[in-house]
C-alpha cells in the first residue's frame, strides 16, 4: 500500500482483507517496520551473520458503514504511549538533576573564589 526504505530499516503500511460485520465492512490497516542487517567477511575468516526484526502494529481500522460512507477508527496503544511518557519524564528529571548539580558546582566554585 505504502512503503519507505532507509538503510537497514523498512517501513510500510498495508491494508488487510476486509472483514464483514453485519452490513458494515472493516478494513484493517497494519503498520509494519522491519530491520535487517548483514555482516560478512571479518578479517581473513569467512563469517556471515544476519539478523532481522519485524514489528506489526495496528494504527487504525477503516469502517465502511454504507457505500461511500467511511469512518477511521484510531487504535491507540496506550501501554506504549504511557511507557514513552514515563521515559520522557525520567529523561527530563535526569537532565534537570545534571543541570542542578552543575550549577551547584559553579556556585560553590565562585563562592570559594571570593575574597
Amino acid at each position, binding site marked *: 500500500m505504502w512503503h519507505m526504505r532507509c538503510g537497514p530499516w523498512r517501513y510500510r503500511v498495508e*491494508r488487510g482483507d476486509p472483514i464483514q460485520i453485519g452490513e458494515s465492512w472493516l478494513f484493517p490497516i497494519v503498520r509494519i517496520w522491519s530491520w535487517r542487517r548483514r555482516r560478512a567477511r571479518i578479517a581473513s*575468516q569467512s563469517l556471515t551473520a544476519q539478523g532481522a526484526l519485524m514489528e506489526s502494529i495496528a494504527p487504525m481500522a477503516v469502517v465502511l458503514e454504507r457505500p461511500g460512507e467511511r469512518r477511521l*477508527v484510531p487504535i491507540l496503544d496506550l501501554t506504549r504511549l504511557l511507557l514513552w511518557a514515563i521515559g520522557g519524564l525520567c529523561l527530563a528529571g535526569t537532565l534537570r*538533576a545534571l543541570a542542578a548539580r552543575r550549577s551547584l558546582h559553579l556556585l560553590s566554585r565562585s563562592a570559594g573564589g571570593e575574597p
Partner: protein
Amino acid sequence: MSDIVSRFFQVFEESRASASVQAVFGPPETRGEVTVIPVAAVRYGVGFGMGANTPEGTEGAGAQGLGGGGGAGTHARPVAVIEITPTEIKVHPIIDYSRLIMAGVCALVWLTFLWSGVLKKFIASRTPAR
C-alpha cells in the same frame, strides 16, 4: 553460502509480511448483536550466523572448521479490542498495568538516587566550613 542465508531472510520477511495482518487483527467473535475483534502488536525476530576458518598451515581437505547457529522468537501483546454493535463502534484499549508500574518504579528509583546526590551537594554547599 551467504546467498542461501540471504534468501532465507527474504523468505522469512515475505512470509511474515503476508501473515502480519491476520496476526494483528484476530478473527471476529460474535455474541448476539455484539462483535468483538481483538487487536495485537506482534514482533518477530530472527538471527543467524555461520563461519568457516582455515588455520594457517593446515590447508587441505578436512582442515577447514565450519560452524553456525541461529535463533528466532515471536512476541505478541494485546493492544485493544474493537467492539462493534449495530449502533456504534468502540475501541477499548488494553493497558498493561504491571509493565507500567514496573517502569514507573524503576524511573522513581533512578530519579530518587539522582536527586539525593544533588540534595546532598546542596546541603554541603549551605553548611559553613569550620
